[in-house]
């Protein structure tokens, strides 16, 4: 590899090296020298993030593909390494989050250094580093073995991060389920690689690209890959590990997990189905679309029922993965039925949403972390009124909420808009079933968007608005500048990606060139101001105008209304004449989502209890009233518990082998011998 062309790969190596260094440094972060973690480790993480951004950005902009080999691995299979626009894109995504986290982390991890939540620090730093190395490595891996090594490294170190605060049984349980599903998923992925290797006659990705699969085996390989990577990205119904695992990890890790790790599943799906298997079939697209739709709708509905902030965010990751999958499914459908341009559009929408979700979900988790850092509360119903105490955090968190609720002019809206546009090209298809199915899916996407908006009105409104519900919350302070900086960076990017979609889409052209040998020529045909994915007459959107208009309205309002007006007077809120309003009269999160719970009853397994205490007397009147509601995830009760029971039942049945009676054992070997003799004679 020549000096200039190889630079991105060298940068990627540098990134991995920096991550490694951060891990090594944090080994010294014993209880007496926490500084090694707070500063050293995160400093190197910062460099690593910057290097990944540089590497990825370079490959994207210069449209490079660099191969390399490292002298590790099996004697006949060196480690094959390759960086191309697709991996570059994900490297940029990962690097951005890393930079944000390295700004955020130093202050956040202080609460682990001392105080009630004190933990040994080295594991945190080391496994964070390994976790990141796993992701960086699998992005640049170019053979199945290396890919799986880094993939499993990612899952495994993720486990150690989830179980980091292992004194709570809930964390241990969550970590166990997480690792179990991750392992099963990895095995299924292995199967798919096995099929490809068997046909391609080699474990390198190049051999797999060259493989010519029969449709049946191609579908098997795709099915395995989709299932395996789907577990990692948390698609319904394989998602149960996610809402348990993400919340219990330290918040900056949750941000990495929801922002980057589950995206690796998306990367895997794209890499395998578009790049390695090659010819995509529309039937796969149908499956992906259906599962994606289910994930998005169910994800947001489950999220609505949560009152643990981080758990709520975790469920929203499921929803957004669903949206990404919808884009992918549409792209597969269109590609499979020969509409290359529309397939490209779907792919772009999916990748764009991947990037966006990484940004705003990272931002939201960091925000939740800030709240946790100051109030030690994860339950929404204990918060409230934080906007007065933590104005900056509140503002940044609000940006995240607006972005994830797909509202213009932020980035979430652009990608969903692109997905809609793809869906609206359904008439181009000849299959009548698809032509009806796709718009329905689009309508369900709209439902998802509206529900997400409802959910984040609830999240932000209950947590940051209104009056504080506990004393600790009332005493909360604003978080340190570093944490604000980390969140601010992501918030800024959310806005930029929302306002300048044309630039981003143009930057993505190399990816689509690589995968489907097509790009969106007309996307920026009208200049950077106008986003016209298909053609100006079909659809167009100009985010800058939106921003401008809102700014203008504010300006005018200031000029003509606020300036010179009598300053506002404060007064009590309207209390219907009943006297003082306490904070306990506010709507709780449960109350907020109650109408939706009634409308969509049956999506959850709801058990609701109201126990009233009435004092005896001539007229019994209720003195105390306790209301509790729990919503359970059906997919848990239907998929996982039965399997677990099955295995344990089998384990219990099999016990008869080990009776402890030596006669039985002798009989075993006797019968075995006779049986074999019978077989061979």
């Amino acid at each position, binding site marked *: 590899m020549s000096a200039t062309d190889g630079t991105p790969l060298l940068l990627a190596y540098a990134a991995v090296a920096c991550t490694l260094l951060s891990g090594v440094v944090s080994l010294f972060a014993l209880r007496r020298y926490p500084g090694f973690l707070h500063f050293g480790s995160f400093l190197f993480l910062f460099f690593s993030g910057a290097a990944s951004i540089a590497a990825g950005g370079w490959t994207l902009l210069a449209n490079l593909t660099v191969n390399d080999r490292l002298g590790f691995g099996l004697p006949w299979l060196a480690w094959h390494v390759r960086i191309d626009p697709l991996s570059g894109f994900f490297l940029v995504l990962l690097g951005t989050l890393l930079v944000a986290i390295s700004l955020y982390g130093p202050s956040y991890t202080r609460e682990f250094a001392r105080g009630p939540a004190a933990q040994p620090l080295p594991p945190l730093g080391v496994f964070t580093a390994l976790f990141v190395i796993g992701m960086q490595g699998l992005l640049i891996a170019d053979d199945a073995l290396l890919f799986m090594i880094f993939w499993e490294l990612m899952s495994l170190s993720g486990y150690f991060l989830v179980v980091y605060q292992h004194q*709570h*049984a*809930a964390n241990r*349980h*969550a970590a*166990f*389920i997480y690792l*179990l599903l991750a392992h099963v998923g990895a095995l299924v992925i292995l199967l798919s690689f096995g099929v490809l290797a068997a046909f391609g006659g080699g474990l390198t990705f190049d051999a797999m690209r060259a493989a010519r699969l029969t449709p049946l085996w191609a579908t098997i390989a795709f099915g395995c890959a989709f299932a395996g990577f789907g577990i990692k990205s948390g698609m319904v119904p394989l998602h*149960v590990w996610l*809402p*348990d695992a993400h*919340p*219990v990890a330290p918040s900056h890790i949750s941000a990495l997990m929801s922002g980057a790790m589950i995206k690796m599943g998306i990367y895997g799906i794209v890499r395998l189905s578009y790049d390695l298997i090659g010819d995509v079939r529309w039937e796969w697209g149908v499956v992906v679309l259906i599962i994606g739709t289910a994930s998005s709708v169910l994800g947001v509905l489950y999220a609505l*029922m*949560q*009152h*643990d902030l981080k*758990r709520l965010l975790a469920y929203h990751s499921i929803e957004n993965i669903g949206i990404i999958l919808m884009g992918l499914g549409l792209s597969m459908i269109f590609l499979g039925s020969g509409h290359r341009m529309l397939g490209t559009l779907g792919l772009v929408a999916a990748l764009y949403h991947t990037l966006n979700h990484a940004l705003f979900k990272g931002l939201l988790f960091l925000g939740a972390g800030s709240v946790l850092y100051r109030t030690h509360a994860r*339950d929404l119903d204990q918060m409230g009124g934080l906007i007065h105490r933590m104005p900056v955090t509140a503002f940044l968190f609000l940006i995240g909420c607006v972005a994830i609720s797909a509202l213009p002019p932020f980035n979430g809206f652009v990608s969903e808009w692109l997905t809609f546009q793809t869906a609206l090209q359904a008439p181009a298809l000849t299959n009548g079933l698809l032509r009806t199915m796709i718009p329905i899916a689009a309508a369900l996407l709209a439902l998802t968007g509206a529900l997400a908006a409802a959910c984040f009105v609830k999240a932000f409104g209950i947590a940051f608005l209104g009056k504080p519900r506990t004393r600790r919350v009332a005493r909360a302070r604003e978080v340190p500048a570093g944490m604000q900086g980390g969140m601010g960076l992501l918030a800024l990017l959310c806005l930029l990606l929302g306002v300048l979609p044309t630039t981003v889409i143009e930057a993505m052209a190399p990816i689509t060139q690589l995968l489907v040998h097509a790009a969106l020529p007309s996307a920026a045909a009208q200049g950077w101001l106008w986003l016209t994915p298909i053609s100006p007459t079909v659809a167009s959107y100009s985010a800058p105008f939106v921003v401008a208009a809102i700014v203008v309205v504010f300006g005018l309002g200031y000029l003509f209304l606020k300036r010179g007006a009598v300053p506002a007077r404060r007064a009590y809120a309207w209390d219907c004449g009943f006297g003082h309003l306490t904070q306990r009269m506010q709507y709780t999160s449960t109350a907020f989502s109650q109408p939706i719970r009634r409308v969509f009853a049956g999506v959850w397994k709801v058990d609701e209890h109201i126990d009233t205490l009435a004092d005896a007397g001539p007229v019994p009147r209720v003195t105390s009233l306790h209301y509790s*509601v*729990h*919503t*359970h*995830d059906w997919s*848990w*009760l239907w998929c*996982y*518990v*039965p*399997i*677990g*029971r099955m*295995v*344990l*039942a089998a*384990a*219990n049945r099999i*016990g*008869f082998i*080990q*009776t*402890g*009676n*030596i*006669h039985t054992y*002798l*009989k075993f*070997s*006797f019968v075995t*011998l*006779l049986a074999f*003799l*019978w077989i*061979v*004679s």
Partner: protein
Amino acid sequence: MGIASLDLYSQAIVLFAALALFTSFIMLAQARMMPLIFTFAWQGLLLAVVTVLVALVSNHPHLYISAALTFALKVVVIPWLLYRLSVRLGMQYDAEAIAHPTLLLLGGVALVIFSYHVAQSIVHLSGLATRNTIAVSIAIELLGMLLMCARKSAVAQVIGFMSMESGIFFAAVVSTYGMPLIVELGVAFDILVASILFGVFFFHLRDSFGSLDVGQFNRLSEANQSMPLREAAGEPSAGDPA
């Protein structure tokens, strides 16, 4: 071709094979301790005699050694050892109740038939006598194993084990004129050590369990302990983790 057509030597071999098989059956049926040990000694004697016979006919001098070894071990040392032990443990007059003795014997017969069936496949390789003796030795070995499965007393198990080895040696002697000497010696050594260890263990067993009834040795059973099903991959996650 019938047995009449064989030469005297082969006839003798077959005869002794039949006798050895017969002793195995006796051991299978013999409930009392002393006769059991004696029958085992008889079997050893037969084995030794056969070895000598083979050594005479096909002049393999080292077979004399193995014959001597067999005699020493299987006729003298081990039976004597077992006898002493059972006297020391005060169980020389024990008679354990065999469950379904007739069934056991029928099973033994079935095993003999089965081993003939198995030996069928090597008929082309060698003469009638060899094949039959191999069949017989397989039968003796399997019968020994059956004995181990059927009997409760540890001593009976040891005897079954030893008679298995006798069967194997029978095959070795008759079909291949014995094993190479080094192997013979090694095996003999192993058997000796084994029998001594067995002796040691009888006392340990008696001390820890109060009897030599192997049916009682099931402290390490797993059959009764089982995992509660509630732990099926953890209980369903409630809306809020505790």
